[in-house]
């Protein structure tokens, strides 16, 4: 039988830890507190597609070949996204949060882990339709420079437009989605006026500090890749980044409820994961 025995599995676990340590030491990206199941699965897949027989063997390549490391970075950072993902969230946001934002003279927004930008542009469209875009300063960050570059471009495959349009309508869009892009060959090019108040930047939630003080922080489908300790740490960073009374929006399966910082927030909508930082926090 070619069963992997228990000793073998223990060795694999050590090799995973060593590889993550090596990546951190060499490149500064810290994956040591990401979901272990996710990282291990990604490593073992990369190992077999690149035909290494052990993780240690692959580690040598990671340390000595930057292009190969870029590949690993891509493996670890799941960039799958879409415009108006979870339309019910955007609908709720429009109903409950927009009216409050309308009372602010100036609004700062941070999209952390924005990937290729679809989420940011979705928000920009809503802000425009509600007539407050010009009062907004939007920061959109990700730790993966490749996706940030794509986000800046705002060009998406034309075959995604059907899904985007469907989501836009379900999200309570008041115009036609086709008002927001120009089709050219195989691409949908988003209108450049959507970009006017957006600053795209490189920021790592694990290793970098507070990026900005904001009224609204959107971080969706990023925390699911972190272990509990790292989630708590990053939520502390969010707490420091949101002005008292400001809002935090997480992904549909991410909850503040079990986080150490839960008592710093009021729950605005449990289903759509919209939270508000308390004005005064008393112990």
């Amino acid at each position: 039988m070619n069963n992997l025995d228990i000793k073998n599995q223990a060795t694999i676990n050590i090799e995973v830890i060593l590889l993550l340590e090596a990546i951190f030491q060499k490149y500064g990206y810290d994956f040591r507190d990401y979901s272990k199941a996710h990282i291990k699965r990604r490593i073992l897949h990369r190992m077999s597609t690149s035909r290494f027989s052990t993780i240690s063997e692959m580690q040598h390549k990671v340390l000595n070949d930057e292009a190969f490391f870029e590949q690993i970075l891509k493996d670890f950072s799941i960039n799958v996204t879409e415009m108006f993902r979870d339309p019910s969230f955007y609908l709720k946001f429009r109903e409950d949060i927009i009216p409050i934002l309308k009372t602010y003279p100036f609004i700062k927004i941070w999209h952390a882990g924005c990937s290729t930008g679809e989420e940011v542009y979705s928000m920009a469209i809503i802000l425009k339709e509600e007539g407050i875009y010009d009062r907004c300063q939007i920061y959109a960050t990700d730790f993966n420079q490749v996706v940030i570059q794509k986000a800046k471009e705002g060009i998406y495959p034309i075959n995604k437009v059907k899904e985007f349009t469907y989501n836009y309508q379900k999200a309570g869009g008041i115009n036609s989605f086709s008002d927001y892009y120009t089709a050219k060959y195989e691409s949908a090019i988003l209108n450049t006026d959507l970009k006017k108040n957006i600053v795209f930047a490189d920021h790592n939630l694990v290793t970098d500090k507070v990026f900005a003080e904001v009224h609204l922080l959107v971080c969706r489908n990023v925390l699911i890749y972190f272990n509990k300790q790292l989630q708590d740490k990053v939520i502390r960073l969010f707490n420091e980044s949101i002005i008292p009374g400001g809002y935090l929006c997480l992904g549909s399966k991410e909850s503040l409820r079990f986080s150490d910082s839960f008592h710093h927030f009021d729950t605005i909508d449990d289903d759509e994961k919209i939270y508000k930082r308390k004005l005064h926090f008393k112990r």
Partner: protein
Amino acid sequence: MKPRIIVIGSSAGGLQALKIIFSLFKNDFSIPIIVVQHISPHSDNYITTYLDKICKIKVKEANEKEIIEDGTIYFAPPNFHLLLEENFTFSLSTEERVNFARPSIDVLFETAAFAYGNNVVGIILTGANFDGAAGLKTIKKYGGTTIVQDPKTAEVDTMPSSAIRESKVDHILSLEEIAKLLISLNKE
């Protein structure tokens, strides 16, 4: 040896098949069961609500970081992959579809094998695609026990047949026999 975790993958015809197996369990069935049933990304919690009502053990959707408890059946949420961690918790992922599926059986099965090795029982039921075959092979490779629904008894035999083709499985059984085997494993 009593397994620590049971993972099940099912697709077309799966709800009926799962219902037959689960309704044969009494409330002393303690091994946690994790299920990937292929469903539309927009579906609601109909399946878990329904099965919870008719089963003697608890049935619910898995939450991210939730601690896996004995005597509970967990289902992957629609549109997310479900991963098993070594510390008896779940993680979710939105990565690309695997075998056209999210949740994918292969993702659950692989992470179950990585985390629990020979303490896993993996089961493939009825379905019209190939998801789960590679995952079941991985479970076998890591020393776990593998079971496939006898294709002759499956509503759609593609998924069980491809699992049987992909690796040498330990048991090929009808739904009733699968339930019986699990009940006896639960007593070990």
